[in-house]
């Protein structure tokens, strides 16, 4: 029996390791090749950046000879501000849906969650018209608004599930202690669902950071490019500066990685806390 369990455990780990390698391979390839000269990239794409293959040229052209730091800043601003609004409005809407009974609450809940099933890209033309009419084309505000709308449905879906599990008596107790409804939300409910906030933050951040579509359509101007769009400048019609493309992509991985490391402890708790009483 014990041996059988051991074998199945080894088997599961082998499968997971194989999958991890498969998933990490392209990432590794990007990072490795970003540290190689252009010739070396083509001569031996999977070779290590050692000896004369090694070159900082990609990073050099990205960090000193381009507007990449500005693009990076744009991406950070767009992602962080969108994330802030998604978390704030998502949590508030879910709190209202789970805490208060009012006319049409089910309908509003469904309406807010419906967005999960309808890809926001279907509305691109209408969005573009709206953004132009609002004089917001080529601004980061346009992106922030669209990403907030894009992130809210899934955020509300996840939050509602968890906010329902917050004990009613704790909220009532806070009411008797004299807290206003807003303070109950910020000082009692939010601290209780911190792991869920981390989960939603990671889920929402990645598609925003990686998005190419909306920056390309809504704010392709020089000043408002995000990283994913900015990378395109190294891809010419006839030549591609692969070293620079790969270097900028490698740098672009960092914020996601850092945020994941910060949130991962909470993330795992958030995902499992519904299933396991803890």
């Amino acid at each position, binding site marked *: 029996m014990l041996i059988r369990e051991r074998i199945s455990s080894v088997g599961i780990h082998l499968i997971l390791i194989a999958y991890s390698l498969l998933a990490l391979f392209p990432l590794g390839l990007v990072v490795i090749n970003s540290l190689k000269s252009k010739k070396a990239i083509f001569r031996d794409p999977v070779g290590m950046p050692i000896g004369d293959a090694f070159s900082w040229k990609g990073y050099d052209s990205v960090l000193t000879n381009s507007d990449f730091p500005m693009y990076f800043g744009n991406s950070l601003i767009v992602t962080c501000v969108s994330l802030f609004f998604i978390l704030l409005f998502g949590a508030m809407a879910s709190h209202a849906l789970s805490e208060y009974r009012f006319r049409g609450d089910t309908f509003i809940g469904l309406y807010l969650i419906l967005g999960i099933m309808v890809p926001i890209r279907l509305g691109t033309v209408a969005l573009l018209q709206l953004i132009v009419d609002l004089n917001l084309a080529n601004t980061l505000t346009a992106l922030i608004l669209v990403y907030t709308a894009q992130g809210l449905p899934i955020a509300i879906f996840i939050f509602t599930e968890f906010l329902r599990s917050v004990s009613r*008596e704790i909220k009532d*107790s806070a009411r*008797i202690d004299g807290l206003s409804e807003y303070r109950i939300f910020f000082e009692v409910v939010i601290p209780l669902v911190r792991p869920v906030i981390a989960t939603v933050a990671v889920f929402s951040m990645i598609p925003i950071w990686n998005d190419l579509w909306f920056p390309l359509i809504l704010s392709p101007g020089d000043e408002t490019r995000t990283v994913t769009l900015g990378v395109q400048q190294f891809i010419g019609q006839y030549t591609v500066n692969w070293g620079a493309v790969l270097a900028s992509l490698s740098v672009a991985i960092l914020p996601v990685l850092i945020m994941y490391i910060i949130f991962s402890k909470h993330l795992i708790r958030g995902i499992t806390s519904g299933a396991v009483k803890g």
Partner: protein
Amino acid sequence: MATLELSGVKKSFGDVGVIKDINLQVQDGELIVFVGPSGCGKSTLLRMIAGLETVSAGSISIAGNRVDHLPPARRGIAMVFQSYALYPHKDVRGNLGFALKHAGVPAAEINQRVSKAAEILELEPLMERKPRELSGGQRQRVAIGRAIVREPDVFLFDEPLSNLDAALRVHMRVEILKLHQRLGNTMVYVTHDQVEAMTLADRIVVIRDGEVEQVGTPLELYRHPANAFVAGFIGSPAMNLLDAQCVGDKVLVGDQPICAANGVAGAVQLGIRPEHLSLSEEGVLKGTVSVFEHLGGESFVHLQLPDEQTFVAKLDGELSITPGQTYSLSVKPEHCHVFDTHGHRINN
């Protein structure tokens, strides 16, 4: 002086009446217990007094002031919840002082009131702990402490002991009684456990389906239940209710006369408490033992009459009873309760 007065209080959700016209006056310093089966509306009534539920009709007054339009924090009440409802991210000190901090009480006074509550409840060694590091009983003491520091006119307890194990429940029951003696506040206590109600209450309010069935001291309810429901609810094991006939001036169960009919005629329900039955040679209730439960000092004997009605007798634990045997039991006439077929009391 904090009296509590409910007059004509009603609550309905849509067309469904949950609380139907409740009138009640609670004296200053009284510990009153709402008791009733699950879903009878006792918790809803408490939440209405607290201000957590709106009142559909009627008025609630505390210390002579009408409060039913005020938010909970301004009613002069404090509530202890069944699940303790402590703030998990704050330590014991933070939990105790939270309400005061929000009310803008000066830090020195907060400290003094928190220390006093901690001393009363012996929480001093636990002040820096988070709720998850406390046992059930300790959490309950913190929840009570949180109510004490607010120095309310009226304490509200919503089944505070239901989440504790049996031994701790008995212990905390005594603690709450001591607390009431020490503080002397008006307290309203909700429970479905009639033992808690009997031991704690100055007066008990028995509630069923949103209506008051009877209000009285524990002994009044025990000795003179107003109807068969109260009779069955108060006392453990529950009172036996036997179908009986009034013939002449006697109440008959089967064909055996049990007590005087006092001028009543026709079908009635005869209530006899299990503890008022005793084995006796001249006993008129002849029952066959079906189940025999031994509790040590006493035993519960389940018996069946010849007409297949069943009843329970609480007898001395030293007696040896054999299942399947028939025994004769007697009851004193003053221990008989007669109810009409609708359950209303008709004697005494």
